[in-house]
Structures are given as C-alpha cells and as structure tokens.
C-alpha cells in the first residue's frame, strides 16, 4: 500500500488505473515511433528498388562483424531489461534483481555505442561518407550510405535516450526514492528499450546483409 501511494501521481486516484494508462500511453507512442522508423525504412526500400546493384555493392562494404556483434549485444540487453521489468512486477523481494538487470542493460547499451563508434571510425577511414571523395563509383551507393549514417545516427540517439532513462531509474531505485515493485516507470522504460532493439533487428539485415551472397 505504501508503495502504491509513493508512486501515485496526479490526476489519478486509483493506482491500477494509472499503471494501465502509463502502459497504454507508451504503446501509443511506440505506434508513433513505428511510423517514424517506418518512414525511414520506406525511403530505404524505394531507393533500393531503384538501385538494387548499387545497394548490394554498398552493403558489402559494411563490416558485418560489428553489425552482428552489436545485434547480439542489443538482444542480450533486451533479455536483461525483460528480466528486470518482470522482476519488478513479481515481488518486492526482487529489488536487487531489478537493479542488477537495469545495470547490465545500461552497460550493454553503452557497449553498443562504443562498438558503433569503432565501426564509424572504420567507415570514415574507408571514405564511406557521401559527397566528394566517396569510395564507391555507383551513385546509388551514396544513397545507401546516406541512409546508413542517418538511420544509425537516429537509432543511436534513441538508444542514448534509453541509456539515460535506465540510468536515472537505477539512481532513483538505488537511493530508494521510489519502490521498485510495480513502478510504472520501469515498465515504460522497458517497453521503449525493446522498441529500440526491434528497430535494430530490422536494420541489421537491411544494412549488413545485402550483397553478401554474390
């Protein structure tokens, strides 16, 4: 009971209702995000339809190992995030599991960004930035890398926001400012985190896998 009263916010009088509204609200926001990234994927698809060979050639230039490792890192972070969120709902005794799960999640998110940084470095060295001095001859390849830089950048911003949200949660929970049990912020943050993961799941075959077979 005390947990609930600590978590109750204006204008709610019923905590269950507040919890449900938060969850519903974030899902509506995720639907919006679906179209946000969906529009980028549409851009990619239309360009790829118009320049299939250039996209294959450009896809071959990406570093598939960075991509695959990073996908694995994010999938694992989703695992720890899911465990943390489920533990928070399960029982107040699992507070340490929640904290541990969140910490590993944030670490994995950071690891992703560090790996991405190394990959960016390599891309810069290989002159894969659209514009003068671009490494590949096909004009369509510049489209591919235009998309690559933009979408990985936007994704990295989303992930950074995720890391910030998780870090804040860790801080608040660690200092016991708010209870972990049934804390709506944990669930909302987790849902957001998973969406960022899903976006990457789709980016992986679009960025790293074209043109590998030929």
């Amino acid at each position, binding site marked *: 009971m005390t947990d609930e009263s600590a978590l109750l916010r204006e204008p709610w009088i019923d905590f269950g209702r507040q919890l449900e509204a938060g969850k519903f609200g974030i899902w509506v926001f995720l639907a919006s995000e679906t179209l946000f990234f969906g529009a980028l994927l549409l851009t990619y698809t239309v360009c790829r339809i118009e*320049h299939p*060979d*250039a996209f294959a050639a450009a896809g071959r230039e990406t570093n598939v190992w960075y991509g695959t490792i990073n996908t694995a890192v994010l999938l694992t972070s989703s695992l720890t995030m899911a465990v943390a969120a489920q533990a928070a709902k399960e029982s107040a005794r699992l507070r340490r599991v929640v904290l541990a799960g969140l910490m590993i999640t944030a670490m994995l998110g950071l690891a992703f960004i560090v790996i991405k940084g190394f990959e960016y470095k390599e891309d810069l060295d290989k002159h894969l930035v659209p514009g003068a001095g671009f490494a590949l*001859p*096909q*004009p*369509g390849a510049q489209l591919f890398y235009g998309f690559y830089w933009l979408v990985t950048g936007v994704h990295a911003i989303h992930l950074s926001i995720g890391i910030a949200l998780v870090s804040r949660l860790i801080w608040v929970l660690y200092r016991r400012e708010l209870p972990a049990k049934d804390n709506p912020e944990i669930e909302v943050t987790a849902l957001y985190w998973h969406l960022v993961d899903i976006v990457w799941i789709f980016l992986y075959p679009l960025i790293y896998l074209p043109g590998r077979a030929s």
Partner: protein
Amino acid sequence: MNSLVSLPEASTHAGAVDHIFYLLLALSGTTVILVFGLILLFAVRYRRGSKAKRGPMPEILSREFEIGWTLATLLTFIFLFWWASSADLSSLAAPPHALEIHVVAKQWMWKTQHTNGAREINALHVPLNRPVHLLMSSQDVIHSFFVPAFRVKQDVVPGRDTDIWFQASKRGTFPLLCAEYCGTNHSMMRGKIVVMRQDDYARWLTQQPEGDDLAHEGAKLFVSQGCAGCHAASSNVHAPRLAGLYGRTVQLADGRTVSASDAYIRDSILQPKRDVVAGFEPIMPSFKGLLDDGEIQSLTAYIRSLREEQQND
C-alpha cells in the same frame, strides 16, 4: 488574350475536361442550393418562438434518411470517379505518330527544340490538329509545364523524363506557365504557345536558323564524347551495338528484361552499371555530369534514328 470569365478550349482534350467540370459544377451547385436552402428555410421557419409546428418527430426521420443519403452520395461519387478516370485513361498515352518536341526546363526558362533542331526559348510553335508529344526534363528543380487553354499540366522533374501530349484545335497564341514553385523568379517563368496551320508551321520551321536536328547533333556527340570508340560497328571493344536497339526488348545480365525506351537509354548513359546487357562486361563509365539534359536528348534521338535506318534497310 483570355476573356475575364471564360477560358478558350484550344485542344481536343479541353472539351472533355470542361464537360466533366460543368457536370461537377452543376452537381455542386445543386448541393449548395439544397444545403443553403434548407439551412435558410429551417432558420426562418424554426427560429425560436415561431409558430411553426414542432410536436413529435416523424419516425421515418432517422436511420432511413441516414442510410439513404449515405448510399446516394457514395454512388454519385463512384460514378464521378468512373467518369472522370475513364476520360483520363483514354488520354493517357500519346498517339504513335505524334510530333515529338523536346522541352528542357531550368530556373527560370523553358527551352524547346523541334525535330529539325530549331530551338526556341519561352515559346513553342505547334501545328494545328496534329498530336504533339512533349518529352520533358529539368536541369535543376521541379517545374511544371502548364497551358491553361489546353487543360494540360505536367511536372518536369530533374533526374527523370516526363511527357505530355496534346492536339491543338484552335489557332492563336496561348500562355505557357510554370505551375510548380521553383524559386525566386518562378512567376517570370512564362512563355507562349503559338498554334499555326500545318503549312504555316512547316514554313515557319524552315525559316528558323539552321540548327542541326537532334539526331545529327547526337551523332556528333556520339563521336566527340567517345561513345563511338566502343559502340561503333568498327570498334574492337566488346560493347553492345546500338543499331536497331530502340524499342527492342533487351536481355540483361541479371536475368531481367527491359524495353529499350528513352528512359532506359538515359539510365544506360548515366548509370551504366544498373542495367548491364547479358553477355557484356560492366565496363562503361558513367557520363553523369559530363552531359547535360539537352545532350542526352540528342544522343537518345540519334539512337532512335538508328532504329529507323535499320527498318529502312
């Protein structure tokens, strides 16, 4: 020029468009009169405190009415769609023997070129009663070729070819306008269309300063740009021969087939690696940036003329 209230119907297409327009106008007019009339009628008759009968509402007045007018509007709109679209579809493709004229748009002028090479700026002379097919491209931003008297409009898009056709049915001079906002002097990007009798047009054409016709210009470019080095019959390089190519179906290296259209030729010049012909190596360099749109049109016209030679043989 135009009168204040009516616009000349100067193409065969204009009459059809105006028919649809007038029907829609009549229909909208009726609806406006109906809705405004009812609102006014109710407003006066049922103003507060008037003696008009109120009492119980008639039973019929709800669901039946709703369903009735929903269906009525739906059917009307489907009919309108069918009618307008069939008019559009029937005028979609240019007739096969239309006179081909090239149009290049740039900020802020229209450049036109006739088959014999005669060039005009911000003007276009066309013969009466003969289909005219415009092949258009843009050198910078999107423009839109708009001749109100013909009821035609088509955006001219950089990086691809668009086309439009009309058959002028009235002699005279008609305004040509750019309808897609294209920057500072968008509103100055105007010209005129001069419709002449066919014999006048032929005479006018011969009086123009001798420009090479497009195909001849293209033939010169074919040599000067080095195309002939590989594609000429005498060349040692293994490259596709272009005689008789135009309009044929081409088998590509990756198994697809394409039709050798203007767009295909343009793509092959600018992005040769995109559609590689079966049996050839992708060795051709891109001519992007080396040729402007006018030159590509000339080259295309030359390749097209090779088809005709083939047929004449």
